[in-house]
């Protein structure tokens, strides 16, 4: 087949001379383009100190931010429950965007309805949309639960979800006994992780039923963690401990479902019965902190059982995770886990000389940023910049304390509310050896020539990575793999035409 006519697509087609000439002519005659000198000069200027200063003076404009809006996170919390329809009360375009965003990251379908509010709803309120919307949802999809969040429009006009849902039930828009949870998730407050927190805490509050009986079981909350492999990994770990558990929001069924010839909208997840019974577990373990602020507060206050929050990345984080499980459950840490720890440490021992002394700048959501910062330092890597758009004060303080505790963090700068255009200035004026970030950070790689290690969300331009775990010792091995082998790959590329292009490294 390969010897037939070969078709060139955009990746190579436009390199043909005919096209280059065409582009050049167009630029010259019609585009009113800046001169090449102007462009070169401006480019150089944007990479300098003067520009950096100007750039950091920005008060209003945000360029290439590292955050999305609340309802996205709310949908992510919702998709983790069995037989549950995520529902966006607001404009239909919002739902379309959320769904596309997730589809592009997970390469999986992401069901969610919207009640398609338009101009008239702006005037009269969105209650009618919700009544018809819920009616259709139950008729078409027969979910066990509907999880409603809001997008901007509903929030700006002040729709009252609680009231609407009550009415819908009373009016008979929905079947008797329908379970509907709802959370206000205004896009102009916080970010996607806030929405996750709002939705999850609302679900716990609205569905959980405390009976007084305490069950020998723990709840586990992973937070806004898009590495689907982690949901399987924590189950495997808890299985080794022999612990009974409930994961509160487990999207690993819906977002990693088989291709077997039959599309199923709902593939599993946390059972509704478990959600109801969660307050009666003897403790709750959380694997994220900054994406679950309200949730933690709620559980501590309302369920009153022991709560542990760990950041389960790297050696220290995984140690914390294992010890937290042991502490909450009274179980011994299994020998197999200890063996895995040893194998992870072993892998670090085998490879850390490629990381030690290299400098790293990071982009991520706060919980990942904290964990990766610590893990990079565990490998001997030095941190230059940790830059977030949705960092919180707590995160900032925690991260600064972490960096201060370690020589590899001594020169690091921390930014909680900056964007990737700020980051570009930082990288251009104070370069590091490697960037860690999501797919959008590829622009930074292009602009600064600094290689990118792809860890984060969204990950649109690589496949399968989210299927691997990143937590615990075995997840740590994957992170290590991505970090070390990217360094090795870049080293190869740098040395390919020199004698340092070693076969053994």
């Amino acid at each position: 087949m390969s010897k037939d006519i070969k078709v060139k697509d955009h990746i190579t087609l436009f390199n043909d001379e005919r096209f280059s000439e065409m582009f050049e002519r167009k630029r010259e005659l019609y585009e009113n383009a800046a001169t090449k000198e102007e462009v070169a000069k401006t480019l150089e200027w944007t990479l300098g100190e003067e520009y950096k200063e100007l750039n950091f003076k920005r008060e209003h404009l945000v360029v290439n931010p590292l955050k999305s809006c609340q309802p996205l996170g709310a949908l992510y919390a919702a998709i983790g429950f069995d037989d549950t329809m995520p529902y966006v009360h607001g404009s239909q375009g919002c739902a379309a965007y959320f769904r596309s965003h997730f589809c592009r990251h997970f390469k999986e379908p992401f069901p969610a309805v919207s009640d398609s509010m338009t101009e008239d709803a702006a005037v009269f309120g969105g209650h009618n949309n919700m009544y018809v919307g819920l009616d259709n949802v139950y008729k078409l999809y027969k979910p066990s639960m509907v999880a409603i969040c809001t997008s901007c429009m509903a929030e700006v006009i002040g729709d009252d979800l609680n009231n609407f849902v009550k009415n819908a039930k009373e009016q008979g828009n929905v079947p008797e006994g329908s379970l509907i949870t709802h959370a206000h998730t205004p896009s102009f407050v916080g970010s996607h992780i806030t929405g996750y927190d709002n939705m999850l805490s609302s679900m716990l509050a609205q569905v959980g039923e405390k009976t007084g009986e305490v069950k020998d079981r723990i709840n586990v909350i992973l937070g806004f963690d898009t590495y689907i492999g982690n949901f399987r990994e924590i189950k495997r770990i808890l299985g080794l401990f022999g612990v009974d558990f409930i994961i509160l929001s487990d999207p690993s069924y819906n977002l990693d479902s088989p291709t077997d010839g039959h599309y199923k909208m709902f593939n599993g997840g946390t059972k509704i019965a478990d959600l109801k019974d969660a307050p009666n577990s003897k403790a709750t373990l959380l694997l994220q902190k900054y994406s679950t602020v309200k949730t933690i507060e709620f559980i501590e206050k309302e369920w009153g059982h022991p709560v542990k929050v760990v950041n389960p990345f790297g050696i220290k984080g995984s140690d914390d995770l294992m010890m937290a499980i042991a502490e909450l459950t009274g179980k011994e840490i299994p020998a197999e886990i200890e063996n895995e720890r040893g194998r992870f440490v072993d892998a670090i021992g085998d490879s850390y000389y490629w990381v030690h002394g290299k400098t790293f700048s990071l982009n991520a959501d706060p919980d990942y940023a904290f964990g990766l910062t610590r893990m990079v330092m565990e490998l001997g890597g030095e941190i230059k910049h940790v830059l977030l758009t949705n960092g919180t004060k707590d995160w900032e303080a925690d991260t600064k304390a972490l960096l201060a505790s370690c020589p590899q963090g001594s020169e690091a700068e921390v930014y909680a509310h900056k964007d990737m255009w700020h980051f570009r200035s930082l990288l251009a004026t104070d370069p590091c050896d490697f960037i860690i970030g999501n797919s959008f950070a590829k622009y930074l790689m292009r602009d600064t020539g600094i290689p990118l290690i792809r860890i984060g969300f969204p990950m649109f331009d690589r496949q399968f990575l989210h299927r691997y775990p990143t937590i615990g010792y075995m997840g740590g091995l994957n992170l290590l793999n991505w970090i070390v082998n990217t360094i090795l790959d870049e080293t190869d590329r740098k040395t390919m035409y020199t004698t340092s292009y070693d076969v053994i490294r």
Partner: protein
Amino acid sequence: MSTIDKKQAEDFIESVITQYEEKTYKDRKTHIEVVEPGQEKCGVKSNRKSRPGVITMRGCAYAGAKGVVWGPIKDIINVSHGPVGCGQYSWSSRRNYYNGTTGIDSFGTMQFTSDFQEKDIVFGGDAMLRGLLKEANNLFPLNRGLSVLSECPIGLIGDDIEAVSKDISKEIGKPVIPCRCEGFRGVSQSLGHHIANDTIRDWIYEKDMVGQKFEKGPYDVALIGDYNIGGDIWSSRKIIEDMGLNLVAQSTGDSTFSELANVAQAKVVLIHCYRSMNYISRYIEEKYNVPWLEFNFFGPTQIIKSMRKIAAMFDDKIKEQTEKVIAEKYQPYFEKIVAKYRPRLEGKKTMLFVGGLRPRHTMPAFQDLGVEILLTGYEFAHGDDYQRTLEYLDSTTIMVDDMSEFEMDNFLEKYKPDLFGSGIKEKYQTQKSGIPFRQMHSWDYSGPYHGVEGFGVFARDMDMAINGAVWKNIKAPWKS
């Protein structure tokens, strides 16, 4: 012979839509029709609200205005005005290719947002917007203008972005164009196109702006309604040039502000995506007396037909050159592609549900490869789009407007096509059913599909999708 039996199909459709809530049922009934080749009128209702609680494939006016019309113009800064999400989700997702240095003289794959906070909702965002526009202009001095694309809250809190834009435009000496494309307006992306077209009209042509001066000639044409997905407009441009014409302005794919203004300077305006840009072409004809012509550069049949139609607007030199290039260069290439791929695709059946124009534009290209269309329809078409789709039918076809995913699942299950062409949201569930899929908004990260080279890529990709080895392996062999 048609695969679709009209009566059976109608019964099936009825069985599906009766499951809706009553008003929804009544509404949906008017959006679906089984049509026959040769049929004169299409009765499908369109451009109506999607019903709440039904998973629609549609987006919003902002998506239409930003993603389609303003977004691809490379040398202006498009500010997504409002909360962070809308700009974030639409960031770099349309693959409107352009040449230029991003962040310096081009801004296509950047996300500029005002990142509204609660205080902005409460106190209004106008003052902030003023500051923002100036910051943008200072940090990106080679921009040729800015647009302000409103998100939902802006219209609801009563901000006056027009006043702000006027002021700043004066202050910085560049166009600043406010575009009221709040997502709650209208029923789909389509109103966004219209609104954005109106802003082009009002803020460019009504102000008699012109672009870079060029030496005018008898063969000057403009090409609009091509968004350069995966390089579409470049392979189209090549055809235009091969015909001996002069392409003086293109929009909005790989377009500049200058070209946008200069569209009206051409002798003829060629329009590819009629749905999203007809407003402008009609207006230009009216105001400047420049004629426009719709054309279709998908697949050999339509490419050749369109080339001749365009050539017919010009003198014999152009006509001869057109025939020459067809005969000497294009036809032989098309034959090779068809010879390779048609045998692999002949008799395959597809469903196509995309935007507001592409199904009827790509159907002939599928037919050039021997592929039958079982079902088609549009996310956001208008009545005339459906009407004009009829001429491309060559078998009984189900026509659906604003197809819900509920309907889609049922159609896929029932008819098991060899290919479904639609959008990213539809892709993975289709594949779970074991049905090959191509994203026909974004060419599934491939492209171009327009033009001569584009047909090769199109044919290759459809073959790849339909005949992908994986689809033979959907079922575990121990499940019989």
